[in-house]
């Protein structure tokens, strides 16, 4: 069986890893979610290196202590919740959080923009997303970058589903208002 193309759920793979010490099952889960988790953390932390470190730490802990994850739970929810909690712990240990928030999440020059027009468009989107407050940005990223369902987001953020929906809608409205002037300028 090619483990890279298996359709087994994350939870099933984690049970295999936990009970049979099947490292391939773990690697498959890691490959499925590592990049996605890093992206979420990048948007959340505004620091790519920190994001990668936190994501790496979470998988390392899970590797050493498979019992950390309860297979009756949704793995993605557990993963993103753990990442968020670890970031909160990291913040508590920092005295210069405010300074970090001023940093650019992802410098505009870092993405593969291609043409100037595309670069300009993506930069505008990036700047608009950065203007969202942390809570709105988080649900927006979980929904449209990580493809979590409303229910999963509500579990990760520990919010009622209605609040998640309203935050998503608010985020969309804010982005629309941020990006509209740019459109008009172009026109």
């Amino acid at each position, binding site marked *: 069986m090619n483990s890279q193309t298996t359709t087994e759920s994350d939870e099933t793979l984690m049970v295999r890893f936990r009970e049979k010490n099947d490292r391939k099952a773990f690697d498959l889960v890691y490959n499925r979610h590592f990049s996605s988790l890093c*992206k979420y953390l990048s948007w959340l932390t505004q620091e790519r290196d920190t994001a990668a470190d936190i994501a790496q730490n979470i998988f390392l802990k899970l590797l050493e202590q498979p019992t950390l994850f309860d297979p009756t739970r949704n793995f993605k929810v557990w993963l993103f919740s753990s990442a968020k909690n670890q970031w909160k712990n990291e913040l508590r240990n920092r005295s210069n959080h405010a300074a970090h928030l001023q940093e650019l999440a992802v410098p505009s020059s870092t993405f593969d923009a291609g043409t100037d027009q595309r670069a300009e468009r993506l930069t505008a989107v990036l700047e608009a997303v950065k203007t969202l407050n942390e809570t709105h940005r988080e649900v927006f990223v979980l929904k449209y970058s990580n493809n979590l369902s409303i229910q999963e987001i509500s579990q990760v953020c520990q919010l009622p589903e209605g609040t998640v929906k309203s935050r998503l809608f608010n985020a969309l409205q804010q982005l629309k208002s941020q990006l509209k002037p740019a459109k008009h300028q172009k026109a």
Partner: protein
Amino acid sequence: MKDMNELPGDILDLIAYKKYEELSPIEKQLVDQHLSADAYDEYTQIVAAFQELDDSLPAPQVSNRLPEAKPSLVRQLFTYRIPAYQAVAATVIALFLFYLGTANPSIVEGAVVSHTDSTIAPNAGGPVGIETQTVGTPLSEDNYPEELVFNL
């Protein structure tokens, strides 16, 4: 069109992957209850642009950066690796000791006999080991302590 602070989850899902013109009649009906077609398409474009941005961001490489998990102590014990020559040498030594113990039992018996001799007859003269056992005052009739002599 309803004026509300949130959109149904279905619309928030649809925005991620369908333009208004691609919606089924039922989906259009749902969208029309909450948004205009133009507003829906604007949100669709925003989400598409964000996803394009998100995809273009360099993600950390998914690699084999994770080390092997530490196995349990018992597992470590059973999977502990040693060089073949050490295993062979240990086997040879074990066999040699076993051979010594079984093929020439007199060595062991002799040692016991010698010790026994030294205990029972310290002055009989004999193996070297006896001399080490005969330290102290030899008991004879001449120097036997008087307080231990009972005249019956």
